[in-house]
């Protein structure tokens, strides 16, 4: 007993210089704060650059000799005004919002039911169904877009936002199902059993017990879906032709990039405005987001 204590104290003594050095303030600054500051600077710089370009008058934008490029001397709203009133940007925003919300609800509906069946109804082969859906996530859009384009044409959905709403769930459903299976797992089985004993039907149990308890999971799955569909590019590029039906990422690239002299101000303003909804939406639920991400990874 005393032997062990003595051993511990000598070990602690030998470990002390190292711990002391680690705890010293200068070392902490060098090893943690400085690299962290560099990371934040580099990760955020493109956004700063995007923002500052959106508010710079053209004269300043292309003249680094007389104006410090890192600051704006006379900010202007001209680029944003041009974007909102001279281009179809509001229409693109509306289309993107419509597509993102539509595909999010469709995916949530499909994946909630699927996750419930796989995790709660437990049938023979349910792990394999789960694995199959999970594997679907690993099939990348870049392999599918060519045959999907012909499928979309066959369905008569070419150039329609409906095509995107129906196609996006192919990558949203696997992800959401995977996430929701984890959530359903965390809800105690006994609650459902009690309800069954009380004579509730399976649908009542799903609607009144399981779903309300899974709301945090549903929210994070919804945020993921919304961001992923807002972000999607290759399908929207391949399936949509007319300007009015384009989503923001595609429209900015194909409609705003014209001629030899790029309208950097308007382009950056478009990127900034196109990023804002996702960033805002995400910042509202950031805790869910980070915790569900870490939770999903832990699974």
């Amino acid at each position: 007993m005393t032997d062990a204590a003595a051993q511990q104290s000598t070990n602690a003594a030998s470990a002390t210089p190292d711990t002391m050095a680690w705890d010293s303030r200068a070392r902490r600054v060098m090893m943690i704060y400085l690299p962290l500051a560099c990371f934040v600077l580099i990760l955020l710089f493109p956004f700063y650059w995007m923002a500052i370009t959106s508010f710079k008058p053209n004269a300043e934008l292309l003249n680094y000799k007389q104006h410090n490029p890192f600051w704006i001397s006379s900010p202007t709203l001209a680029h944003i005004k041009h974007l909102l009133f001279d281009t179809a940007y509001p229409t693109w925003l509306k289309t993107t919002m419509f597509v993102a919300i539509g595909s999010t609800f469709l995916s949530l509906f499909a994946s909630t039911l699927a996750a419930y069946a796989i995790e709660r109804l437990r049938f023979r082969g349910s792990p394999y169904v789960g694995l199959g859906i999970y594997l679907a996530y690993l099939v990348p859009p870049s392999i599918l877009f060519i045959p999907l384009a012909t499928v979309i044409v066959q369905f008569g959905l070419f150039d329609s936002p409906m095509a995107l709403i129906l196609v996006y769930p192919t990558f949203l459903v696997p992800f959401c199902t995977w996430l929701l299976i984890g959530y359903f797992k965390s809800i105690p089985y006994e609650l459902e059993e009690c309800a069954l004993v009380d004579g509730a039907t399976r649908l009542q149990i799903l609607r009144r017990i399981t779903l309300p308890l899974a709301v945090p999971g549903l929210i994070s799955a919804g945020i993921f879906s919304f961001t992923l569909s807002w972000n999607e590019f290759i399908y929207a590029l391949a399936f949509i032709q007319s300007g009015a039906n384009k989503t923001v990422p595609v429209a900015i690239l194909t409609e705003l990039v014209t001629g030899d002299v790029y309208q950097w101000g308007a382009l950056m303003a478009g990127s900034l405005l196109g990023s804002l909804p996702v960033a805002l939406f995400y910042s509202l639920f950031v805790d869910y987001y980070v915790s569900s991400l870490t939770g999903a990874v832990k699974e």
Partner: protein
Amino acid sequence: MSVTTLPSRGVALRQPGWIARLFDYKPFLIVMCLAPAIGLLTVFLTYPLGLGVWLAFTDTTIGQRGIFIGLENFQYLWTDPLWWGAVFYSVFYTAIATFGKFALGFWLALLLNNHFPLKSLLRAIVLLPWIVPTVLSALAFWWIYDPQFSIISYLLVDVLHIRSTNIDFLGTPWPARFSLIAANIWRGIPFVAISLLAGLQTISPSLYEAAMLDGATAWQRFRYITLPMMMPILAIVMTFSIIFTFTDFQLVYAITRGGPVNSTHLLATLAFQRGIAGGELGEGAAIAVSMIPFLVFATLFSYFGLARRKWQQGEAND
């Protein structure tokens, strides 16, 4: 708490209608629950996947049904220097970008795992590059890489006086290749960092305390505790990252569209150029299908990563 969410007694005693009773029949309920997800995935994923493989063996063009031509598309690709260039750049892009993302992301995760004020705010900020649509941040990079007005050139030439001329980031093959890789790493760091941070937090602090008592240095603690404990999650996150980097499309399409002189084509952008823009659906599908062997390899890698994890946890734990 559970009591309030339970149906009240009156509701429970009411005779359920025939629909409700049908839904209580478990096989029916299971089929109904799985139908939307499986239906969507079959129609828009499994069927197109099969159709894509079929198209790869035909000479289909836009507006014209093709006929089966066997391996002709693949034979043609085998002799096509552009396809070989895309294979080379896809592998190169994936290798360098994945390495960069993981080295920097792991470092960032270790930094974020420390205690300091405003930690959760910082974690949220750090995720931004991953949240914002790729094409929109790619446009910002396009502007940052502008041949005349690049802010990087300005820093190097006018502020630091390291160079005398602007860098032509996107106009020459190798600088363009590395510019794209840098943008890809920038975008990938947050996801890697947050995922690995989650892994770091599952490691019990008592392991580190024990190692400290035994006099292990910081490097030894990292090498013999952190790294082995992180292997399973590293394997999974890396598989995802490899798959999505190899099949990347948006970043390259937005910044260079495969140029200059086709030096930055990934297989996905080449497939788009031939299949959709060029109208040669069969050939484009063949290029897309040629990505599959690589993806199968990456998925097997993931499988063995998971298997290893089970082995580490021990059988009793599962």
